């Protein structure tokens, strides 16, 4: 799968073409380590000088995509990459069998689970602000999220989708995406489990 989508170039304030694909390989994981981590580290150093920034940074430190190499062969796992200007701008891992729906009206039914979604650090406004630079692209995470919803429909899951939201993203998933906050998960660092029903997924894709 490889499709042209659009993200926002913040330098010109307009949409530009990008590619979203699921033929993610080890080279892409290495790219995140080589290209992304130094920027994250520099931003983390700058942010550590500022108060109340602890929630954002640690999540970007510990996730090492290269450790996911063995999962590239698993049918239950799918990785998506988003590239623009010859560089990886975002990456996402989804699973289709480990988790199932928790909302009472669809409990036990299969869903696409977003295990991790990450934008390149230069696309994260707070990180770049810490370095005194502008954010490069917007809507990278949104395009990856849409790909997960579309996969759920293609799989026959009717758009059912679930994820554990990081504290800083809860507002985005609930208010902007329209997901239902189901409850905190004590087995997953007490993160908030959010879920899409088929109707919510339809509304999201329709832009409502």
């Amino acid at each position, binding site marked *: 799968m490889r499709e042209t989508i659009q993200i926002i170039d913040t330098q010109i304030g307009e949409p530009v073409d990008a590619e979203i694909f699921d033929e993610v390989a080890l080279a892409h994981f290495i790219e995140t380590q080589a290209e992304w981590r130094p920027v994250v580290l520099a931003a983390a150093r700058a942010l550590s000088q500022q108060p109340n920034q602890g929630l954002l940074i640690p999540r970007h430190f510990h996730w090492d995509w290269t450790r996911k190499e063995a999962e590239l062969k*698993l049918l239950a796992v799918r990785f998506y990459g988003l590239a623009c200007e010859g560089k990886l701008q975002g990456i996402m891992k989804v699973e289709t069998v480990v988790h199932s729906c928790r909302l009472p009206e669809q409990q036990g039914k*299969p869903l696409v689970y977003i295990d991790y979604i990450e934008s390149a650090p230069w696309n994260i406004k707070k990180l770049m602000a810490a370095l005194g630079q502008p954010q490069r692209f917007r809507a990278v995470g949104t395009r990856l999220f849409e790909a997960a919803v579309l996969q759920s429909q293609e799989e026959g899951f*009717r758009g059912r989708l679930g994820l554990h939201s990081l504290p800083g993203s809860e507002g985005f998933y609930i208010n902007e995406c329209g997901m239902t906050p189901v409850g905190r998960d004590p087995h997953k660092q007490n993160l908030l489990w959010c879920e899409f029903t088929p109707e919510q997924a339809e509304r999201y894709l329709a832009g409502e």
Partner: protein
Amino acid sequence: MNPKRTMTLNLTDQEMSVLDQLSVQKDLSKTALIRQALRLYQLVDARITRGEKLFFEDQDKQKAELMVL
């Protein structure tokens, strides 16, 4: 969407009955259900091959190891 290939699947009446029942229960087509089963089998097999164990836990928190062939 990735290209797909077609195959014929021969099932007994009982197997087909279970497939029908699970398809309704999970709100999936039969094809999607079998695809899920294959993914799960591969995932479990890969983890057991690398030395992990699979357990079920009952309501009393008693664990029972599940053998997978």
